[in-house]
């Protein structure tokens, strides 16, 4: 017989499992630092990210500009922090929105047998499209603002969540406690939200973390290709795109945003792995 951890005991155990891996703990700390630096960019940044100074163009990193200055003499360090704010917001926005859409689609597909086939085929069709191609098409239709990039990428990634939610829902809905709720006269929407959803949160959280990382990469890719957020708003992707022209004179221009993207995506992947390992085996035992 399976034992059921109480949510309180479960959380203690979960954190213990999560922190047991050094890499995961390290990744969480690094991510927290990046997120805090970007969130407080206006306080932390050495100067105005938009202030141009033609005399200082392409200055190498040093005393005046810690991470150098770009082709317009703007401070790279400041731009990096403000750009990070946009990149992280896009990642978070996509993770949240795609989870919301995916949960609704997945719960409906898992709960209503008549909806399952059409919804599943729709999800399959969307997943068969190359991610970045679909995103480019959607952004070109919607127009290049941060909100539209979030919308486009959420549409791209929602099917991943929908699939996981559908599969988990199919398992949970057959359990007697769901039948008990039906017998009590609990309405179907309430059964889905109160009884099923809390029991399938773990895989959703794990997948949302991965989507956070994928969305940051995709946003950088879109900006690099020039189809992302309007270039007047700095993002790590646009910074790389702008720096590309000066790669032989000032390689640091693409190095720093590139490193920022790599580190952020790497730590998010590590966090996702850690969450999965800490949540999933429990989930298997739980049910």
């Amino acid at each position: 017989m399976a034992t059921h951890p109480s949510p309180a005991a479960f959380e203690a155990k979960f954190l213990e499992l999560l922190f047991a891996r050094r890499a995961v703990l390290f990744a969480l700390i690094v991510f927290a630092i990046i997120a805090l630096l970007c969130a407080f960019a206006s306080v932390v940044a050495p100067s105005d990210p938009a202030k141009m100074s033609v005399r200082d163009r392409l200055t190498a990193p040093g005393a005046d500009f810690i991470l150098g200055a770009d082709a317009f003499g703007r401070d790279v360090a400041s731009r990096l922090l403000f750009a990070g704010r946009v990149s992280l917001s896009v990642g978070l926005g996509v993770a949240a929105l795609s989870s919301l859409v995916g949960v609704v689609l997945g719960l409906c597909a898992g709960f209503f047998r008549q909806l399952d086939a059409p919804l599943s085929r729709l999800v399959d069709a969307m997943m068969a499209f190359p991610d970045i191609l679909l995103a480019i098409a959607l952004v070109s239709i919607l127009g290049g603002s941060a909100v539209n990039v979030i919308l486009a990428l959420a549409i791209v990634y929602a099917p991943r969540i929908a699939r996981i939610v559908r599969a988990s829902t199919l398992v949970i809905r057959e359990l007697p406690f769901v039948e008990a709720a039906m017998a009590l006269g609990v309405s179907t929407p309430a059964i889905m939200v109160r009884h099923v959803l809390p029991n399938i949160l773990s895989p959703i959280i794990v997948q949302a973390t991965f989507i956070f990382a994928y969305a940051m990469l995709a946003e950088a890719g879109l900006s690099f290709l020039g189809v992302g957020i309007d270039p007047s708003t700095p993002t790590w992707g646009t910074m790389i795109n702008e720096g590309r022209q000066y790669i032989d004179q000032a390689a640091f221009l693409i190095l720093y945003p590139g490193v920022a993207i790599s580190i952020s995506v790497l730590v998010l992947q590590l966090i996702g792995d850690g969450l999965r390992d800490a949540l999933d085996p429990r989930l298997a035992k739980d049910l």
Partner: protein
Amino acid sequence: MFDHAAQDPLLHIRNLSKRFHTSRGIVHAVSDVSFDIPRGSITGLVGESGSGKTTLGRTLLRLIEPSEGETIFDGTDINKLDGRALRATRRRMQIIFQDPISSLNPRFKVGQIVAEGLRAHGIGTISERKDRVATLLDEVGLSSDAISRFPHEFSGGQRQRIGIARALALEPEFIVADESVSALDVSIQAQVLNLLLELRERHNLTMLFIAHDLSVVEYLCDQIVVMYLGRVAEIGLAQHVYSSPGHPYTQALLTAVPVPDPQAARDRTILTGDIPSPLDPPSGCVFRTRCPIADAACATNIPAPVKAGPAHQLYCRKPNVQN
């Protein structure tokens, strides 16, 4: 105790069938079942695994949609109710499950589990519900501090009591107990059975008690329905069925019950083989493939009910009626 003939039954089940369409064919889980459940009685539903007794119990509550037939509950055919009316009627009929683990939501505290029905029907304020939950927990023999604890903190028997409190919260008239004690230790089984009997008396409940253990059923039930492969084999008052079983399947089931006296001489009917697949049930009498007295004619006609006594019916061509 109730008087079988004197009153109109709470539940009239007429020609109820449930077929599941699967990729391997049609599963005939319940076929043409008809019987009555008198008010205030405990009806035992027995049969081996695969006989369709669990499906029947679920279909009576319309947790499974029947393929055809009527389930007339207190004058209303619940199979004809729409969503809203069905939800309202569900207050009056509840179920207690077999598995004390998976029948309680692991993310809910006991208080939430027991109050869920009250919440769903908008009964009482939050504090009134809390009082009601405390009363219910006391009634099933749990202390009131259970309210804020999670189901995993309880033993199997205690968890079954939580499930009983949940079922009682809406003050139902009819309860289906689906093998509700078979997952428990024998000593705990007796406690939970006694609790059910006590609650039945106090709340004047009508119960359908699904079991495969005939000795438990004999102890508890007024009426017995024996099912085999989705069909009723025999139905009657418990004392009649136990003292003079007429259907060869009932006789086989009863002789399989262990007797405490090893010296007792026993005339046993031993069943060989397994229950046939409900995907392809035998023609005529579904029991004929394992029946010791079957002949060629049993393969052609589905047996009609034979009256074996007052309120005692069998579905057999060659009933062995002793009285």
